[in-house]
């Protein structure tokens, strides 16, 4: 059973650790690095809750070993909002459209959409909906998430803009 020294940049800050080879990136983020915003649901690739951004791509952190992330840049849900707490546009769209209830699936959903809209990329509504096939949400029935996707792609959502503020 091998152990490995790794250094991962998490949300812009270097984090080093010693990990058993079998430790997943998801466990490393939560247990070793303390970023418990990354949620582990099924731990075998089905639910998408554990999705984080590794070197710019949304991936399932339960299907990657921590040792494989050595040298990588990882962004978790904690790394998306601005320093002053201003929401990332994806977070804002989720909030405006009531796209979460219990919030368990949400960090993964937000990471997927943040990766797809990074660097001013303009994914289509269809592309974002297709990417949602990689996430299970047991609460919302997905309609709020669909509206958030419409907001992100610059389309009317049917929800008053100030709804979130007063709800």
């Amino acid at each position, binding site marked *: 059973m091998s152990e490995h020294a790794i250094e991962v940049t998490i949300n812009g800050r270097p984090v080093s650790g010693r990990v058993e080879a079998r430790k997943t990136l998801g466990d490393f983020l939560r247990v070793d690095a303390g970023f418990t915003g990354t949620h582990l649901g099924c731990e075998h690739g089905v639910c*998408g809750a554990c999705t984080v951004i590794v070197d710019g791509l949304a991936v399932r952190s339960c299907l990657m070993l921590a040792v494989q992330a050595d040298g990588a840049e990882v962004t978790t849900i904690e790394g998306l909002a601005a320093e002053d707490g201003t929401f990332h546009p994806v977070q804002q769209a989720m909030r405006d459209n009531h796209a979460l209830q219990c919030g368990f699936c949400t960090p993964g959903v937000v990471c997927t959409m943040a990766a797809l809209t990074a660097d001013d990329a303009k994914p289509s509504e269809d592309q974002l909906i297709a990417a949602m*096939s990689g996430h299970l949400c047991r609460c919302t029935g997905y309609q709020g998430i669909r509206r958030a996707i419409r907001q992100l792609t610059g389309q009317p959502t049917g929800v008053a803009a100030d709804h979130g503020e007063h709800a």
Partner: protein
Amino acid sequence: MKPAPFDYVAPGTVAEALDVLAEAGGGATLLAGGQTLMPLLALRMSQPFILVDVNRIEGFRGISHTAESTRVAAGTRQAVALADAEMKGAQPVFNLALSHVGHYQTRNRGTIGGSVSLGEPAAEMPATAVALGAEIEIHSRDRGTRRVKADEFYLGPYMTVLEPDELVTAIHYPRWGADAVTVFREVAQRPGDFALVGLVGRVAIEGGKIARAGLAWFGMGPTPIKARQAEQALIGTALSDIDPRGIAELAIADTDPFTDHHATAHYRRTVGRRIFARTLGEALNIQQAAA
């Protein structure tokens, strides 16, 4: 931590990886995209002594074309192959099939070589390799390189001709020419799920006749299944003489579908027959009487 303990190595070259495999005498398992192996480790259905990570091997990724064929290096990420415009032009049915493999998030890690090597009977990439007449390039330290035709590579569910000391380094897909029509249809419960029934292939037409046909089923037996009888019936036949429903019967005769908790064998055959006739008819632009 869910997986059982193992040692981990990440060789930088194919030669180093082959050394580890040869020395391990069957105790080593290759880790590519991990999108199948990691779940198997978490469920402890796989408990290797050594995990050999191929993700840091130099030159293990990339796609190159010649006039005759396309070489896809085994470590090429599914997402990268899917986004490759030149690949889409050269191998349109590969692109179509790949868009049905898992989800955006799993394609960001999953590799073409991992999917081809695994041999999941309901998977798109093995059947695509069989249908197109691809060859699989395999290396081992002690026996050098060999190339195996895709339709001779698969032995059963998750069983291939690969020996424990072997590594798939690339898949070579023949080029079918821009005129060959594409055939693809998959029935699954949700987007990104494994197929209940699927059909993939290409058909080349010359002078109003079928010149070449490569068709394979997925989810319709223990391995991807080449629709040999249907291919033979098509080749040399004039477009005006083709009866897609008759050809579909021949294609179904080569399958050996199973019953599981997703669908019965009877369902798979019934749906298979329908999608084969319709998809072939549409691809060849043959008008059919309503069923």
